[in-house]
């Protein structure tokens, strides 16, 4: 067993890559967790999937012109977000035409990734775009990631009540004179930025875990909005830190020498958190049932 002194003095805390990864994952995770609560409430988890898939195409293009992957994610993500705003309700998972356009973008991404390997001889671009490689993210991106996360948090703090009203009942909000359309646009903007931030940290394919996992657990655990957001942010932070710690430790796990991918570990922890939340609900209901009180 590892005692406290060795834990504190472990080289884990002295590696700049680890700190960079911790900053990136935590800021992306917390922003996604806060936005995620609203996504789960509005039932938009498929939209998050579309945003990061299209973002992946942008990231693969960005390697081609050798600019930072974050710009690629963000520009194509904004494009996809604008497209979804224009298409409106049609952009739900049911519509097969939307699905076709999405797969076309992924096909384009396939071409870009292929050309990446031809041009730059970096064979691991595929893995780093789709599954993320948080330990090798350019440290220059970190301030931007933290900045955008803080901006999202401030935006949500400022817009908390009208946004909540819009998410619960748009018609009612309209009747009360809230600019529903404008708030929807702002929400979409925050949604895109949060989704692409976590795509950079977790990889395009696994970022959905960050967007909806902690939020879904939070919503299950508490019916009060503020508590749900807090729990969600906490769960995301735990998953980020634990995942990075385990990824660091996994270099000594069998089969030794390669290390387990960080994004897989974070996604696995989030899945476990969600299962635990579901079990807690059942357990709580069970206890209350024994006490003779009915659980709602």
């Amino acid at each position, binding site marked *: 067993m590892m005692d406290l002194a060795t834990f504190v003095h472990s080289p884990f805390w002295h590696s700049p890559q680890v700190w960079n990864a911790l900053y990136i994952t935590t800021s992306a995770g917390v922003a996604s967790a806060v936005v995620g609560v609203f996504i789960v409430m509005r039932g938009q988890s498929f939209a998050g999937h579309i945003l990061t898939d299209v973002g992946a195409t942008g990231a693969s293009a960005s390697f081609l012109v050798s600019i930072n992957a974050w710009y690629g994610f963000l520009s194509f993500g904004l494009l996809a977000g604008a497209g979804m705003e224009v298409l409106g309700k049609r952009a739900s998972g049911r519509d097969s035409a939307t699905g076709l356009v999405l797969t*076309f973008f992924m096909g384009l991404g396939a071409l870009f*990734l292929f050309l990446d390997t031809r041009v730059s001889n970096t*064979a691991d671009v595929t893995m780093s775009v789709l*599954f993320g490689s948080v330990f090798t993210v350019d440290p220059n991106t970190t301030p931007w990631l933290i900045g955008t996360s803080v901006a999202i948090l401030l935006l949500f703090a400022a817009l908390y009540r009208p946004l909540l009203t819009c998410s619960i009942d748009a018609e009612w909000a309209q009747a009360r004179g809230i600019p529903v359309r404008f708030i929807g646009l702002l929400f979409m903007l925050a949604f895109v930025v949060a989704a692409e931030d976590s795509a950079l940290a977790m990889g395009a394919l696994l970022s959905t875990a960050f967007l909806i996992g902690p939020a879904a657990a939070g919503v299950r655990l508490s019916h009060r909005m503020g508590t749900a957001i807090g729990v969600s942010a906490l769960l995301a932070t735990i998953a980020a830190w634990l995942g990075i710690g385990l990824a660091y430790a996994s270099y000594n796990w069998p089969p030794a020498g390669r290390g387990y991918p960080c994004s*897989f570990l974070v996604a696995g922890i989030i899945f476990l958190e969600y299962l635990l939340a579901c079990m807690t609900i059942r357990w709580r209901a069970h206890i209350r049932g024994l006490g003779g009180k009915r659980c709602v």
Partner: protein
Amino acid sequence: MRMMGVLDTLCLWLLPPGLLTTPYMWHAYVCGTVVAVVATLVGYFVVLRGAAFMAHSLPKIGFAGIAGATVLQIPPLAGLLTFNLLGSLVLSALSRRGKRDVVTALTLVLALGAGELFLTLGHAYGETAYALLFGQIVGISGPQVGQTLTVGLVTTGLWMTLYRPLLFLTVARDQALARRVRERLLENLFVVLIGLVCVMTVPVVGALLSFSLLIGPITTACLVTRRGLHTLLLAGALGLVAVWLALLLAYDSGWPVGFFATTIIILEYGMVHIGRKAISGRSSKK
């Protein structure tokens, strides 16, 4: 003289040397044809029943299976079959309970993550990952052709058995239930059917682009005709054109086949969509 040069280039482009003599191209053509036909058959029900989400998810689960097979060094088909059949049962069980989108999405993400883990543990990076996600024509071996044909036959057999009751259930659910059609069993078998198709599509066009082949031709055909047989025939033709042309272009250029397949399918859809609008616009003017 100039004309001849253009013709020569065109011939060289349409029939590049080795197109019909290279064994792997034959493998790719045979597999591609079977895949296009069977994907159309199953895609018909996917579109009718609005099960696009399943068609989107199962290939990704297949990715984990095929990656796991590379770690254990067993045939990829075994990994694909295990994961897809298990995955289809889990997904259809999950989709019957409430809050399905969250649980299903998390399960998917976990499957993708597991695939990533397997690739890392198997020391297979870059190229292999790319081939599994986006398809690769040179990757199809001789035995794999036989396997694809077998799975294709089994899937078509299952499809023919399911055709009447599933159509009945889809079109007139209440009547079907009154006639004691077993809804649950049929739904499960339907998802297994999608899983089986993905076993075939994933090695050819890759996990991320299988959806396009499954949905694209049928969606396009549905724009033109509403009659079942016509839709199937038209979609089959569209799918075959897309796959054959994609293989030819991929051979010509050396670029990934999945890119061409998705591009041709979206072009087909776009052209039919525009053509239909033009025709209906003209007839409404009269």
